Structure formats: C-alpha cells, structure tokens
C-alpha cells in the first residue's frame, strides 16, 4: 500500500514534469498569443480594412480584463489623447439640422463586412437608437447607454452646451475615459457634419427628443 502510493507519486510527478507543469501564461505571453491570433484569423476585402483590427493607444489602455481598474495615469493619457483627437466641422457651425439628426440617430447600418464585401453607403448610421432611449414613448431603443430623452430640456441649447455635446459625440473618452460609448468622430465612423446634425437632434427645442411628456 505504502509502496503503491510512492510509485504513484513518482508517476504523477513525472507526468507533471512531462507536461511542463501546465499553468496560466503570464499577461505578456497571453498578449503575444492572442495578438498573433488576431493577425491571422480575420479576412477583409482589402488590406486597409484589416487595419481595423489594430488597436490605437487609447483602445489598448481601455482594454482591461475582468474589470481591472484603469490607473490614474492611464485615464489621464486617454483623456489627453481624446482631447487632442477632436476636430470641428470646416463651417465652424456645431448645430446642424435636427431632422437629419433624427434619421441618423435611428440608422444602425453602414461599414459592416460580410461575404467579402464592405457595406458601402454614402454615409454611416449614427447607431444611437441601439443603446439610448430617444424620443418620449419610443419603445424600440436600447439601454446600454444613458437615456437621452429630454436631453435639451434638461440642458438648454446654449453655445456651451452645443460644444460640449459635439465633443462628447466626437470623442466621449475626453470626458469619461474608456466608457462604452464609441468615439464616433475620432474613429471616423461619423463625419464632423453628421455629428452637428446629432447635436441639433439632441438640443433643438423642436426635436422630438425634447417633446414634453
């Protein structure tokens, strides 16, 4: 009995040695393994589109595993990078047409890749409806982001609010680093002009989003 136990422990130890004591790789090794996968495992109609998989510095800083906290330095860097990314429309006018903005906010299409083809449209949808409550009583809306119902009623439509709203859509990480909100202008999903229409949709008193309930 005793001898058998000894034999088994030798067998067990040898097995562990043979297996090289398999265990979790460290974060640097994991990163190497996973990034190699990303480089090899996707296809796109053009090499330029494959570049979508490459992370910029802010995306790297914002990819925290299992709710790991963003360091203060990391957050400061994301804010700095995000502030620097913000561009304004050539016209200088930050408030566009709320009717165009309304359509954009309810448009979730554009720029997807399927069957070796890019979903090419004149312009991308704004995606807002996917995650935000919009006009009062609108049912088919998501809740990943905060409700935008009455956005302008609560904040008014001053120049300062227009600028803040524009910047938060262009790159929300300048205000809440690493939030779930896509940096719609900074990643070029939307153009500066499209964002001005969304600003109008949010703050114009005539916009359905500001209809009194």
């Amino acid at each position, binding site marked *: 009995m005793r001898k058998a136990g000894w034999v088994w422990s030798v067998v067990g130890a040898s097995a562990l040695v043979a*297996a*090289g004591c*398999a*265990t*979790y*790789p460290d974060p640097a*090794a*994991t*990163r190497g*393994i*996973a990034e190699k*996968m*990303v480089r*090899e*495992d*996707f*296809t*796109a109609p053009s090499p330029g*589109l*494959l570049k*979508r*998989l*490459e*992370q910029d510095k802010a*995306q790297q800083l*914002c*990819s*925290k*595993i*299992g*709710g790991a906290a963003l360091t203060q330095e990391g957050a400061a860097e994301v804010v700095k990078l995000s502030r620097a990314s913000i561009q304004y429309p050539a016209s200088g006018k930050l408030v566009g047409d709320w009717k165009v903005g*309304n*359509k954009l906010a*309810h*448009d979730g299409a554009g*720029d*997807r*890749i*399927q069957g*070796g083809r890019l979903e090419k449209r004149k312009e991308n949808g704004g*995606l807002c*409806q*996917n*995650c935000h409550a919009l006009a009062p009583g609108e*049912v*088919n*809306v*998501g*809740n*990943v982001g905060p409700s935008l119902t009455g956005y302008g009623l609560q904040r008014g439509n001053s120049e300062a609010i227009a600028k803040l709203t524009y910047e938060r859509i262009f790159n929300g990480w300048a205000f809440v680093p690493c939030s*779930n*909100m*896509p*940096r719609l202008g900074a*990643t*070029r*999903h939307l153009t500066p002009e499209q964002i001005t229409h969304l600003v109008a949709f949010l703050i114009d008193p005539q916009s359905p989003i500001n209809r009194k309930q």
Partner: protein
Amino acid sequence: MPKTRGGLAAILLGFLAPWGALPLLAQSEDPLAVGRRMLAEDNPGELWIERGKALFHQKRGPRGASLEQCDFGMGPGKLEGAAAQLPRYFSDVDRVLDLESRLLHCMVELQGFKRDDVVRRAISRPASDGSDVEALALYITSRSNGMKVNVTLRHQKEYDTFKAGEYLFHRRAGQTDFACIQCHGEAAKRIRLQDLWNINDPKHIAEVASTWPAYRGAHFVVRTMQWRLYDCFWQMRLPELKYGSDTSIALATYLQVRGNGALIQVPGFKR
C-alpha cells in the same frame, strides 16, 4: 425612407417578438415571455438532429467514409458526452479545437472534403435548408443533452487558449471601440429590444455554454457558436472571423469554461 423602415421594423417586430430572446434572459415583466416559452417547447431545430445523425453515419466525400472514426476526445465515434468536454487539446493536430473545428478536421482528413468547400458552406443562408455542418454540430452536441459542461484545462495549450479567449473578450478595436465586454458585462442591458446576456451572471453564462447550436427564429435555420461569434464581429464593424480559427476557438473556450456545470440542452431557441 425612415417611415418605410419603421413600418417594416414594426411588422418584423410583431412577427418575431414572440420568438424573442433567450427565455432565461427575458425580463420577468415582459408580457411576451410566455409566448416565447411556448414556442421554444416546439423547437423546429429538433428536425435537424435526425438529419445530422444520418449525415454522421453516411459514407460521404471523395473517400466515401462516414464520420464514425472521428475522435471528438472520447475515442473514435464516441459521441456521448463529447461536446460537453470541448474545446480541448488534440495531440494529432497539436492544437486546441472546438466541436466545429474538430468536425471540419474529420470531414477533411477522413472523408476527403476540401477544407475551403466545407468552410464556404458551413454557415447557411437564412431560410435555407441549413448546412451539413450545422446539422452535424447539432446532432453531436445533442448526444450530450442532460450532461454538464465540463471543460478542463490540463495541457499548456488549453491554458493558453483560455487566457487568450479572456484577453480577446476584452480587446477593444475598430470604429465602434467595442470588445465583447461592452455589451456582455452588465446586468439587464439591451440593444434596441434585444436582451443581452451578462458574463458575470451565472445563469446567463450557463445558457450561453449549454444552448448552442440553436434554432434561430429570425433566420429559420439552426445556428452554431461559430456563427454567433462571426456575427458579433460583423456588427462590431471588424473584419470577418475565419471559420474554425484560433480566435474563435479561444473565445469559445473562454465561454465554455466560464459556463462549466451548465446542463446541456440543444437545440437552443433564439430570437
């Protein structure tokens, strides 16, 4: 245009809503939940199981072989409980494989099918008869029905794959800045009306790990985990995920390990 789309959306919604989201995720106050449950009890995906079984035993491909010699980790042709322990390391290919990539391997090596041909047909068109791979994956998984998901990490490549999957689940990229975690990390979230499962909720991750392949109401076909992952990357505006790629296997490994202990019941039933 928006009016047309709104009208169409309303019609689609009225039509599809009763088939709804994962029954477990349905919010309790949701008046449609009862209808969803009733329809799920009469799952059309059941029809795919018999077809998968026939395909498994039939001599097919350039080599005229069945899949009875395919080893899913329990020995050649042993399907009982095989899906429950996948993904796992296979020494003959020195890789970690999930159910679908192992199936693909056998269709190529045993039956002589061309890999590209199988991959091209693996994900069927909506409202079609479905693909052989979809039927086979469902049949093989159904042989683990009632068993617990039990993916163990032993080989170094299994540890590496699990950790890579965890990393990829949190890796933000592309013009939407999304990783999986942006939509699947919080409780009671929706994209439009679609409930999102939350990886931190044991009930939700259990359902993810135990209900694929599933009949997808909106597509009228059986869908697999490989399709689910592909479709998420599509919506994230990222390039196309290769069928059976290491990235897909890593994500599947991460999800299955997190869902260990869940009782397998396929076909699942999805929106």
